[in-house]
């Protein structure tokens, strides 16, 4: 079984971004692997270690600095990597999920993958659309927000996390698209020796503009602004004042 894992180079989760000119300021900001994509790679590598999968291919779309992201993915255990180079912004401003899923569709058809593992959403754009769109374009079954995957190479049983509980879905025939949620596994950390070893692994580079896909954004971002700062709380002296404030100012008690 061949697995294709999509990874995304995003702003690091611990960085506080600044908004300038209706976009997020990306200059000199620390970028790293999307946490949900790390979970997807970890799942693919675990399936390879259980001998269910033969090959794990990591793929990313981004500028030339995205090769560092691919090196981390290779260090976690992927066999090969595909780098689709583009200078468009990948955080929903210029490159949007529909174009991304079309690129993925083309690569999946060329690579003949049996399973596509993606992260549930990118922490910069928070769309969560690439997985379902890709499944729709390919006509494959899909499971989103997977919290547990069991597969034997031909069929799979996936537990989904929904707001009202856990849903178990059986896919009787691979290939399929699965989007990974937080509780699927704990991704391993790519230590320096692994990254050194990953430098020997193969990375194919292609240009996104040469693939014959219309990369123009379908949606236009009108405005980007920071959330209003939290107002500071007030201290109350006694219970009567608390009830008075709740009744009159906040309006939560009748």
């Amino acid at each position, binding site marked *: 079984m061949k697995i294709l894992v999509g990874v995304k180079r995003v702003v690091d989760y611990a960085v506080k971004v600044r908004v300038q000119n209706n976009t997020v300021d990306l200059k000199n900001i*620390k970028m*790293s692997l999307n*946490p*949900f994509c790390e979970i997807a790679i970890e799942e693919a590598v675990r399936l390879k270690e259980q001998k269910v999968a033969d090959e794990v291919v990591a793929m990313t779309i981004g500028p030339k600095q995205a090769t560092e992201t691919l090196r981390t993915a290779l260090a976690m255990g992927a066999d090969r990597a595909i780098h689709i180079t583009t200078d468009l912004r990948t955080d929903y401003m210029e490159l949007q999920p529909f174009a991304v899923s079309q690129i993925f569709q083309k690569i999946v058809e060329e690579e003949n993958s049996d399973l596509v593992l993606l992260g549930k959403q990118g922490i910069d754009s928070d769309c969560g659309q690439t997985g379902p769109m890709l499944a729709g374009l390919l006509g494959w079954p899909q499971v989103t927000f997977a919290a547990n995957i069991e597969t034997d190479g031909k069929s799979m049983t996936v537990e989904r996390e929904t707001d009202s509980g856990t849903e178990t879905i059986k896919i009787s025939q691979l290939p399929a698209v699965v989007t990974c949620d*937080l509780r699927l596994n*704990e991704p391993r*950390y790519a*230590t*320096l020796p692994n990254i050194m070893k990953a430098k020997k692994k193969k990375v194919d580079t292609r240009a996104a503009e040469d693939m014959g896909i219309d990369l123009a954004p379908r949606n236009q971002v009108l405005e980007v602004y920071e959330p209003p700062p939290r107002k500071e709380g007030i201290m109350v002296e006694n219970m009567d004042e608390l009830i008075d404030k709740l009744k009159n100012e906040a309006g939560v008690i009748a």
Partner: protein
Amino acid sequence: MHPMVRDLYKRVIHVGYDYPLGLDYVRKTWKKVLRNPDNCPSCFDEHKNQIVSPSPACEREIRKAVGKGRAYIREMIGIIQLKKYRAMKKRYDN
């Protein structure tokens, strides 16, 4: 400097990029510890007042110390992973 100690320091810096307290903190504390002459008295030359190449006698001590250092790096990685998991859980769980 012993090549294993140099390799240990490189591993620490790689982990330090993600460490919550910051790369500067990691670099300062580790450099202080690695340069401390009390940690390997047989490598410290009192006449020259600096750390010299280690003698074969303390090779075993150095390897043990590097092992402890690598275990400490694993603890740091654990802290990084925990912080990331908690941040993602807080943000994306309803």
